[in-house]
């Protein structure tokens, strides 16, 4: 069976991200998965055991300052060389900012089609995509070149399949053009130990109804009790209640968790765009006519400052 290249998405802090395990699971339907680690020195060694647990037979590694010190272009160059050499059956990347950007450059380098925000992939390369904020389901296919797809987090359940990967270090030869955008600093901003928004199984979001930044503690408390991530509506972000990287909706993140809890969110179409493919939705809002209730599997019409603390207390009792 031919190789399927899976470009690994990982963080320094938490290692391999869940979307990578989802991609390895999808890749096994199309061929033999090979993971590609593009990162700082020693990145592959730290990640390969986990990649093996989900079926990576091989790990290609391109590491060092030449890769890590610049914005995506060197990664795309290394990946393009690898694709030309191993002629994979498909290339999978995460449908997040960097994955899409590497894929974009790869598509131009190889004059190859590209499909983004893929939630399913058949053995013949037919991809399922969700369009227009989850209101349309699209079947599509790359018609020029190999299937080059970016996979949306929380699309499939990762299934382990033990393998013992061999690690192959790739020769990195990047051009001056690849080094035009230099990363001079990486700054971590507070997030704590919560799971990442797009990958979380549970997301608890607050909206305008939360009232102020301080009250977001209530949202955070419920999120922590449910082991979830915290999100915010655009209204809450624009009002300065919560930072922009946690915004869910049309101009923010798209999430698709098992459980989405909307607190004080009316459910404007721009917000629904970012969360309506969630499996279960519950909402608390004082306005019984709020459109969020049209989506909610369970809704409480009431004051969130009464309902949420009571719910938190009840969860503690049951633990």
């Amino acid at each position, binding site marked *: 069976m031919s190789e399927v290249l899976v470009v690994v998405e990982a963080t320094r802090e938490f290692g391999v991200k869940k979307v990578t395990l989802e991609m390895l699971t999808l890749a096994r339907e199309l061929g033999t998965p090979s993971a590609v680690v593009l990162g700082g020195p020693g990145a592959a060694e730290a990640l390969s055991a986990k990649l093996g647990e989900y079926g990576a037979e091989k790990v290609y590694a391109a590491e060092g300052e030449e890769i890590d010190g610049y914005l995506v272009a060197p990664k795309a160059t290394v990946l393009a060389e690898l694709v030309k050499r191993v002629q994979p059956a498909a290339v999978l990347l995460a449908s997040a900012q960097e994955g899409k950007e590497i894929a974009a450059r790869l598509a131009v380098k190889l004059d190859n089609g590209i499909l983004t925000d893929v939630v399913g992939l058949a053995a013949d390369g037919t991809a399922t995509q969700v369009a227009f904020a989850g209101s*349309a389901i699209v079947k599509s296919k790359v018609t020029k070149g190999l299937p080059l797809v970016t996979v949306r987090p929380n699309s499939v359940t990762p299934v382990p399949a033990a393998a013992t990967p061999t690690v192959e270090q790739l020769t990195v030869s990047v051009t001056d053009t690849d080094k035009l955008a230099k990363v001079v600093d990486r700054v971590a901003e507070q997030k704590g130990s919560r799971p990442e928004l797009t990958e979380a199984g549970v997301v608890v979001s607050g909206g305008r109804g939360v009232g102020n930044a301080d009250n977001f503690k209530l949202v955070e408390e419920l999120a922590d009790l449910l082991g979830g991530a915290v999100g915010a509506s655009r209204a809450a972000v624009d009002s300065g209640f919560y930072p*922009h990287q946690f915004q869910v909706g049309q101009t923010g993140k798209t999430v698709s968790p098992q459980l989405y809890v909307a607190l004080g969110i009316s459910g404007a179409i721009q917000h629904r765009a970012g969360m309506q493919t969630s499996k279960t939705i519950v909402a608390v809002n004082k306005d*019984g006519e709020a459109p969020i209730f049209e989506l909610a599997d369970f809704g409480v019409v009431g004051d969130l400052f009464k309902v949420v603390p009571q719910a938190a207390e009840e969860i503690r009792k049951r633990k």
Partner: protein
Amino acid sequence: MNIVVLVKQVPDSGADRTLRPDDNTVDRGSANNVINEMDEYAIEEALKIKEAHGGEVTILTMGPDRATESIRKALSMGPDKAVHVVDDALHGSCAVATSKVLAAALGQLGADLVICGAESTDGRVQVLPHMIAERLGVAALTGARKLTVDGATLTVERQTEEGYEVVTASTPAVVSVWDTINEPRYPSFKGIMAAKKKPVQTLSLGDLGVAPAEVGFDGATSAVLEHTKRPPRSGGAKVTDEGSGGVQLVEFLATEKFV
């Protein structure tokens, strides 16, 4: 500094949007078409740079005839002129082909700085800035929440999942911006009147030296096979809090095995 801002006309994301039943492309005919929201932030950023450092701001749009409305709207914010790439053969173009056309137009315009929105609200594909930069062989500074211009040196704060990265490059470059970067101005009455007289140049594929077979459905590198409307969600149980709303909520979560 010669700045070009990429502007796309999209169906209003505040209304229902559909794909055409005949060819699976975005239904623009029946939609209320507006400037892609993120592009207004790109225009604002370009105007601020011009105000601080001098130069010229040009709007570049690829789209059908009706995109003229969005071009005039963009010009009413203050840019100097616009270029509209319009050609019937472009209908059905994929992202790869679109980047080829825009790169060809940018090559003719000789921009020092190309600014665009980080994504469009219709496709949300996010690939064009890097595709264009790859074709032009220039730097791409994408996902900016802050942009600083110092002579020919550009520095951006790039929003990431963990925080942000500080990335620098020299012009010429492509910069894409998020809506956290600024607060776009509203067009003034004077601006709206002035926009009507600003030059809008139209370019065809022939003008750009791109063959019709390289774009549209013929030149597409991917195809939509079919589309279906996702069944709308239906609301479930709704209770009014009469003192036990929180407990009822947790009971529901327990039935669904979340607690």
